[in-house]
């Protein structure tokens, strides 16, 4: 190329092929994620849509939906946008084409394995971290590949200043890696089953630290980076205040990480921690709004164009929803608001304002900007893009409003106490469910509109791509090399891909070691106490059925210390009660009632009939049928291994208890089967999963931690 023209100029090209691949993946998985969302939305409105098939029940599809939306849809969109903008901002090609490809295919493979394993019931039972340990390791590896590719590019940059968007990407890469590894630490029982090393309140804390920061550093910071790149580019105007964007970044990074405990207000978590979570959450409001205002003011003087240009229209709407969600978030973190809203659909509405309003809208704007550039083509139809915009906006409106009404209604009904008698106004939980079923229909229709809008975009973009006449040859650009004073350190590394390879390997090894040999850490997080007995072997197996079926997606196990909850469920949950719970199952949503105190509330037979068809016992129930539980045999073969892992995690099982675990479990199963047989159930039920599940349910709350003082637990 024209190297002679200027000694200093270097020629380079951009790897846009990988961006195109990630674009296709975004479209594909976006549609899948939304289709799953619509499916489970209709399942709540109309229980028969659970189809009577175990793989399609709400409890199994809901984790698939959330994982697909976050990691498959937003993930691929983020990678597309990051790789596109990073190269331009650095004036450098991506570090290594092979790493880019490994990143792409590795990520798709992870998504496919999630799509297979979650419906099969292979799950850790920790929200948004449901994937089992081999997939967790794969995520770590692919993330490291992404990181090496990213930082390699950054080091080779030809632009001295690191634009603010890149800082947001850096925060994402570093933090997500740490969160993922820390939260996924577990001990495998078998290839697709493991137990978290944390238990009870400890697990809850780590999980929601992760859960909240997955929202912060996977769904927010990278997308903010994209906002700071694509909004100015699309509007062809500099960001309103660059200074403010820098402040926005650093304040978010330092505050976000402390806000996690707001997911655990009024739980058995220590009071001061809850307060920390609340204070930091409220503090987040200021920088978030600074960012929103910065984004919107970038469009000043461009508002007429926002009306006609789909790119700007989607981007402006996304930023507005960012503002809305970051106002609602701190509001929901205020304890008094939280006491009504927690466990209700209000929170579901809140997250969808974020994922649809902010993530989907921003991704759509970005794709409408990118596709013409990547394929050298024009948008096929502006009218279709407008149609998409309005369908999505109206759908989202239905979604948010219906969930807000449902949430507030149900929250108020749960807590309503008759002033004279001092009893619950709606003692039957199901009343509070049937009340909001109409809202479930509205939400499902809103979700369908959003799905339709997305399909319209796919059509529109594929048509645009098909019209491309370009051979997509890479263009050659020139830019001066980075001036020597800043480059020396970096330049050395640049020529040494080997060093990076070694670094990757090292991180992989560290990641793996941390993932699978954490035993020695476990004992330290564990408080020995005799006041709570661990689960019997059969209960442990039943608990695994509970986790496998995703019962936690509809049922909490956490009675909060409020009068109404005590009237409805019983004594508030105590931190010590879940101390052997690897993983914890406190839950986050009460589509059905809390189960922390359900033990001995009903006879075995009630549960048996209820699990086969909940409508036998509660006429208007929306809980799925679980007939296969009465058919599938209990897996006794892994029981001893499970017990041993629990023992390694510090659960005080004696060696003889482990050795006789199968016998003990079968004995207890026979006892339950005998009682069921009195009501006419065939005795062969004794070795079926339903018996294990019943033993677990009957155990819940039976040991209300009476004599335990807080000190004993807090030590």
């Amino acid at each position, binding site marked *: *190329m*024209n190297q002679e023209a200027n000694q200093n100029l270097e*020629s380079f090209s951009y790897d846009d092929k990988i961006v195109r691949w990630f674009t296709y993946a975004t479209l594909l998985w976006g549609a899948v994620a939304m289709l799953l969302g619509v499916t489970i939305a209709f399942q709540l409105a109309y229980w028969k849509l659970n189809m009577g098939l175990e793989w399609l029940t709400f409890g199994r599809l809901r984790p698939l939906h959330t994982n697909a939306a976050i990691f498959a849809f937003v993930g691929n969109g983020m990678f597309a946008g990051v790789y596109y903008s990073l190269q*331009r*901002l650095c*004036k450098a090609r991506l570090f290594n084409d092979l790493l880019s490809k490994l990143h792409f295919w590795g990520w798709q493979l992870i998504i496919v394995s999630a799509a297979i394993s979650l419906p099969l019931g292979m799950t850790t039972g920790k929200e948004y971290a449901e994937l089992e340990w081999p997939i967790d390791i794969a995520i770590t590896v692919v993330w490291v590949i992404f990181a090496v590719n990213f930082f390699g590019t950054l080091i080779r940059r030809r*632009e001295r*200043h*690191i*634009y*603010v968007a890149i*800082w947001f990407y*850096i*925060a994402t890469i*570093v*933090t997500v890696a*740490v969160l993922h590894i*820390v939260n996924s630490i577990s001990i495998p029982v078998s290839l697709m089953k493991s137990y978290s090393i*944390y238990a009870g*309140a*400890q697990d809850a*804390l*780590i999980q929601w*630290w992760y859960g909240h920061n997955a929202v912060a550093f996977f769904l927010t910071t990278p997308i903010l980076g994209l906002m700071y790149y694509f909004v*100015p*580019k*699309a509007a*062809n*105007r*500099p*960001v309103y205040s*660059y*200074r403010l*964007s*820098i402040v926005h970044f*650093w304040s978010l*990074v*330092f505050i976000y*990480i402390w806000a996690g405990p707001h997911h655990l207000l009024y739980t058995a*978590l*220590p009071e001061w921690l809850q307060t920390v979570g609340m204070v930091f959450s409220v503090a987040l409001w200021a920088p978030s709004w600074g960012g929103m205002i910065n984004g919107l003011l970038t469009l000043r003087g461009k508002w007429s164009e926002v009306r006609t240009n789909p790119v700007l229209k989607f981007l402006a709407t996304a930023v507005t929803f960012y503002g809305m969600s970051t106002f609602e978030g701190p509001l929901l973190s205020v304890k008094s608001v939280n006491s009504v809203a927690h466990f209700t659909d209000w929170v579901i509405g809140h997250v969808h304002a974020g994922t649809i309003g902010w993530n989907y809208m921003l991704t759509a704007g970005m794709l409408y900007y990118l596709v*013409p*550039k990547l394929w*050298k*083509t*024009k*948008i096929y139809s502006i009218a279709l893009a407008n149609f998409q915009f309005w369908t999505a906006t109206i759908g989202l409106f239905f979604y948010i409003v219906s969930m807000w009404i449902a949430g507030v209604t149900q929250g108020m009904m749960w807590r309503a106490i008759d002033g004279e008698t001092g009893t619950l106004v709606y003692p039957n939980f199901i009343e509070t469910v049937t009340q909001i079923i109409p809202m479930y229909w509205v939400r499902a229709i809103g979700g369908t509109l959003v799905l339709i809008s997305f399909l319209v975009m796919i059509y529109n973009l594929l048509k645009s791509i098909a019209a491309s*006449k*370009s051979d997509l*040859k890479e*263009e*050659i*650009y*020139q*830019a001066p090399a980075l001036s020597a004073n*800043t480059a020396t350190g970096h330049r050395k590394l640049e020529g040494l891909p080997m060093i990076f390879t070694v670094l990757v390997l090292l991180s992989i090894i560290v990641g793996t070691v941390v993932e699978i040999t954490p035993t020695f*850490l476990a004992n*330290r*997080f*564990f408080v020995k106490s005799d006041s709570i007995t661990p689960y019997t072997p059969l209960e442990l197996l039943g608990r695994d059925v509970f986790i496998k079926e995703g019962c936690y997606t509809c049922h909490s196990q956490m009675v909060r210390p409020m009068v109404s909850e005590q009237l409805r469920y019983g004594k508030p949950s105590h931190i010590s009660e879940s101390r052997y719970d690897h993983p914890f199952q406190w839950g986050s949503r009460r589509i059905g009632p809390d189960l922390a105190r359900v033990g001995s509330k009903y006879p075995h037979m009630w549960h048996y009939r209820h699990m086969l068809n909940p409508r036998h016992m509660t006429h208007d129930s929306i809980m799925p049928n679980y007939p296969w539980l009465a058919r599938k045999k209990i897996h006794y073969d892994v029981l001893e291994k499970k017990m041993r892992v629990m023992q390694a995690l510090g659960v005080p099982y004696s060696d003889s208890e482990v050795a006789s675990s199968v016998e003990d479990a079968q004995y207890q199963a026979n006892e339950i089967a005998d009682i069921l047989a009195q009501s006419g159930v065939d005795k062969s039920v004794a070795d079926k999963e339903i018996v294990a599940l019943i033993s677990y349910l009957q155990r819940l709350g039976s040991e209300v931690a009476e004599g335990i003082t807080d000190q004993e637990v807090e030590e």
Partner: protein
Amino acid sequence: MNVLYFAIPIALLLGVVFLGFFIWATRSGQYDDLDTPSYKILLDDKEIEPEKGKNYESRS
């Protein structure tokens, strides 16, 4: 809540890492000029040997 002995240091460590980034960014002059970077990203790259028959319409 023994896990706090583990969780808080990790959260602090993350904070320290970012503090390190921040100090590096300030020291190395990243924030000396907070006006031009926002304009600079708007300039499209200098392309050489442009090919014929291409569609540049979508360029902003």
